[in-house]
């Protein structure tokens, strides 16, 4: 036995995860719930459960990259410690087979043995190790309605020894009877300060220099999605990917007949902007084709165009409202999988009409 031991170890050592190569999103996933940025409400409530050892069923919801999965994993780890984690926590996510019969079987199996508490863990620390198991249903919004309905019974049947934690992006996709059995926690998009401090913290730990301007840019492009801003921080990419450059938006808006102020440092020539005031169908269509060729994400383009129009100093309320309507219509269509070119054109033509 002792003979083989070193050998076995050498093999993985070759490929062991070198922390310097680990993606930062995983490396800096919060280890404890206090480590979670910004979600004060959820953290405050959960911290209490650490001492009271009583836990309700929970429903976490909020946009991607705001710490839902991280929080429950951290909480479970703090409750059970490394040794009991496997026997006490069952994580089921959308990648697992989640037909309801399978879920029922898995949960039945898992819940069968009554948990025994083994308080002092191998790492020498003590963990509360409350007498129940946690079942995490991550990405619950992709479960069918039927599966969710069946889950109600299961939750009741095993209520004595299990606590459920449902995680989803859209709380409306969870059926009401299920949602009402849980305490709900909303995970907000991260505010700029929290994002900024978390990013600086990571940057310091990794010994990289980041200027405040870059941090601001990251905050702006990620719009409250911390995971995204961390990925971008690590990739140190030019960031211009996600947002469409101002120049392009203004140029586009000008084609539609919206008056735009052009900064001197922008290479839009003023004459062409003036000429475009009288743009006709063909000019608009040509512009749309150009924008499509550049490959910008259509929803991003529309959202930035929306900002420009809503904050526009001289357009009338009516014009803004009509433009907003056109944008809303297109957003819905894009979500339903419509053709981007046709709908950018549709928006462009409608806005053109609205501001004429």
């Amino acid at each position, binding site marked *: 036995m002792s003979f083989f031991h070193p050998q076995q170890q050498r093999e993985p050592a070759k*490929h062991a995860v070198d922390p310097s*190569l680990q993606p930062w999103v995983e490396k800096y996933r919060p280890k404890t719930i206090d480590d979670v940025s910004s979600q004060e409400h959820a953290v405050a409530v959960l911290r209490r459960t650490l001492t009271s050892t009583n836990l309700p069923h929970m429903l976490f919801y909020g946009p991607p990259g705001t710490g839902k999965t991280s929080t429950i994993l951290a909480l479970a780890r703090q409750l059970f410690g490394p040794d009991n984690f496997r026997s006490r926590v069952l994580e089921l996510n959308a990648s697992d087979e989640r037909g309801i019969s399978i879920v029922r079987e898995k949960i039945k199996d898992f819940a069968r043995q009554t948990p025994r508490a083994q308080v002092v863990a191998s790492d020498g620390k003590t963990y509360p190790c409350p007498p129940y198991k946690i079942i995490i249903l991550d990405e619950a919004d992709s479960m069918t309605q039927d599966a969710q309905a069946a889950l109600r019974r299961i939750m009741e049947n095993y209520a004595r020894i299990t606590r459920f934690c449902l995680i989803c992006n859209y709380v409306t996709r969870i059926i009401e009877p299920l949602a009402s059995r849980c305490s709900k926690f909303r995970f907000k998009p991260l505010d700029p300060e929290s994002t900024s401090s978390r990013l600086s913290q990571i940057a310091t730990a990794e010994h990289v220099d980041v200027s405040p301007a870059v941090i601001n840019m990251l905050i702006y492009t990620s719009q409250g999605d911390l995971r995204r801003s961390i990925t971008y921080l690590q990739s140190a990419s*030019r960031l211009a990917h996600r947002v469409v450059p101002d120049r392009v938006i203004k140029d586009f808006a000008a084609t539609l007949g919206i008056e735009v102020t052009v900064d001197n440092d922008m290479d839009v020539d003023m004459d062409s902007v003036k000429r475009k005031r009288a743009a006709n*169908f063909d000019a608009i*269509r040509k512009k749309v084709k150009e924008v499509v*060729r550049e490959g910008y994400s259509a929803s991003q383009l529309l959202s930035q165009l929306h900002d420009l129009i809503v904050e526009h100093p001289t357009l009338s309320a009516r014009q803004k409202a009509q433009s907003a309507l056109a944008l809303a219509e297109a957003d819905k269509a894009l979500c339903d999988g419509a053709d981007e070119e046709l709908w950018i*054109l549709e928006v462009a033509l409608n806005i053109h*009409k609205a501001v004429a």
Partner: protein
Amino acid sequence: MSLWVDLYRPKTLDDLHYHEGLSARLRSLAASGDFPHMLFYGPSGAGKKTRIACTLRELFGKGVEKLKIDQRVFLTPTRRKLDVNIVQSNFHLEITPSEVGNYDRVVIQEILKEIAQTQQVDINARHRFKVVVINEADSLTRDAQAALRRTMEKYMTNMRIILCSNSTSKLIAPIKSRCLLVRVPAPSEDEMVKVMHYVAERQGFKIPDNGEVAREIAQDANGNMRKALLVFEALKMQSVTLTGPLTIAKPDWETYCQKVGDMILQEQSPKCVMEVRAKLYELLSHCIPPTVILKTIADRVVEKVDESLKAEIMHWAAIYEIRMRQGNKKIFHLEAWVVKVMSLYKQFFFDIDMSGFD
């Protein structure tokens, strides 16, 4: 003998022609070792796949070019057997979800789990992870996308995913949140002309008249580099010197669509609708995507009608396109649009005629 598009397809990041800034960024990403999941998006023919291949080559070296094709059998939840061909090297693997239709979730999950659970066996491999390239990611079902979410996080030590798609709007937000987004714009006309000059040089000839032909081809290709090179080669076959009256041949289906457009404007009657319908069926049965049919016909129609009608025709094109996606029978919606256009067109003339009598 292979086509020029394949023959002169860049193999390394250094060979890539345009978007130098992007290539440099990819190079530094590949060098750093902490490669993220990525999503390449941009119009078709802009060179996404080539760029991905070059990035892989940069990551793993020449080994990625040694491809083998595996025949795999997957079992669907309903116990049906699915045969899928999988292209792979020792370091990466490619899947095209549209090849497996509605069962993409099953296939992708099987493959990913398998990769995630096996370690890289090649000790000399430069990276511990394998890369899974998912082509046409916009055709992934919602189910398959949802299934990718946690997998992408959990198995990150053994696996990276590169998604390749035309647009980002069909991907769910949590997937986009997990990837580094890389936009690959279509090349500009100048850039395309440059590539053609390069190909010509490699082939040992010069494009006459300062590359006039190349410019024409580039204009026609509308940012699609693949198309440009194919046309370029075809023209060279047509006339070795690339002089004289050259016509850039349009694909059959395109001329066919244009004919349909002309028919709509020629006569607006139930009889004509029936004729158009037969033609639409013909196009559909040749596997031309309905959206492409609609857009091509619409393009032709708006070219020829009065300014005041153009916006409305495109408006209805947008509306019927989305209905087509939500509905089941494509032909219904195509036809509905045709009838709508005919009625608009007729009304337009009617109004003008009537106004003469005032």
